[in-house]
């Protein structure tokens, strides 16, 4: 447990001091909104289109963080340190999942208000939408931590992670978009079907947290 806190604190401290990922993610997200405004030629969004724009943006911004998640471990010998230390490798997994969720929450704390200001006329669905995004973040964290470890230890590196991760995230996107769509509906949020999709998201999170926890030892051992 202390190993978990040590790694998590290390990651967050490094990010706070270097600011390598978060500003880039936020900038990327805001620019992507602008791109969507012209790509779709829409000044307001609602329903499935709004859900799609928001989720795709968050997903691709998350890829930036996921690609960089294990760079210090690979370049500065963090993996070797974990192997040498008398701690369970799963501490690394949980710490990385939580670190990734923290990054994504920080990203969404900026990107969601910006999205609302840019495109939404009806803001009352934003609070439940934040809950949906949190569930999506946990799933992104679980799959992201596993795939990023594989990517970091491969020759293809930055290429492999998005390649493997995107198909894995399709069910997450289906469920998150299904939950977000009624919340962003034109005449104010509707709640029919949100629970079903939130349950699907929770199932996705649970499955990949368990799978990640079960297999992570084999990714770190050498």
């Amino acid at each position: 447990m202390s190993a978990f806190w040590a790694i998590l604190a290390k990651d967050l401290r490094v990010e706070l001091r270097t600011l390598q990922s978060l500003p880039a993610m936020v900038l990327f997200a805001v620019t992507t909104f602008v791109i969507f405004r012209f790509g779709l030629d829409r000044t307001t969004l609602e329903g499935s289109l709004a859900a799609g724009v928001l989720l795709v943006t968050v997903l691709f911004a998350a890829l930036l963080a996921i690609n960089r998640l294990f760079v210090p471990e690979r370049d500065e010998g963090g993996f070797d340190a974990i192997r040498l230390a008398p701690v369970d490798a799963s501490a690394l997994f949980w710490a990385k999942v939580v670190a990734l969720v923290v990054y994504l929450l920080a990203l969404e704390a900026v990107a969601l208000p910006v999205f609302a200001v840019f495109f939404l006329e009806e803001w009352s669905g934003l609070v439940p939408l934040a809950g949906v995004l949190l569930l999506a973040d946990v799933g992104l964290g679980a799959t992201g931590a596993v795939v990023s470890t594989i990517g970091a230890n491969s020759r293809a590196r930055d290429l492999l992670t998005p390649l493997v991760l995107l198909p894995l995230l399709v069910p997450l996107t289906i469920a998150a978009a299904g939950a977000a769509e009624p919340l962003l509906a034109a005449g104010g949020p509707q709640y029919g079907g949100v629970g079903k999709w939130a349950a699907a998201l929770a199932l996705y999170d649970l499955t990949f947290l368990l799978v990640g926890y079960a297999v992570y030892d084999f990714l770190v051992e050498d």
Partner: protein
Amino acid sequence: MKLKMPSLPVMALATTVVLVAAFALVFFYAPNDADQGFIQKIFYLHVPIAICALIGFIAAAIHSIRHLRTGESIHDFRSYVSIHVAIIFGTGALITGAIWAKAAWGKWWVWEEPTLVSFLIVYLLYATYYPLRYSIEDRDRQARYASVFAITAGAFVPLNFMAVRLAESLVHPRVFATAEGGMPGEMMLTFLVALAGMALLFATLVRFEIAAKQTRGQVHRLRRALDEQAPVAPRSRIAPLPPAEGVS
């Protein structure tokens, strides 16, 4: 192992017999579909291929779990070959699915058919198995990471089918009253024989691929051993042996 599994020639023969029987049934025994007519018979090819591909993916996940538990590389080998053959079958399933969609609905691709869409997503995920595997140089690590991928993807398969089905079920009724529903006995029998034939083909191909790879590895080792014994170092590792020895 040897006691349980029949030899490769026996399996190949059985596959040929059952597949020929299946196609004979498809063309001469099974009735034409009332709505779709003759083209519906692609069902006997498409569905068994797809089922075998999915079972291959799941089997790969089980082999991978074994590999991680025991550390024996034969399980990784089996997992790799299962995914390899399942990818080939998956390509066939997608192509036959597109042909059937064109014939039945007039379009090559139909997003409303959840099974086909799920299959495409699963296929796209497993297609990343090769770049993943071959971008890791260290042999042990390559095997371990490939197993981790196969297990993760194995858990993904049912989850993905569930999510895609949920996304469609509210809007579209199932267009086909296929397989499990009200299928006449002749069709069911034909389908089962076709499924058995395709499963045999899958198993035979897996066996063949494993045997071929093992033989190739053995030849490689023998050649290397010969090279080491040779008084003069050969120009290349795959240099042919001197003709005087008459090695075939």
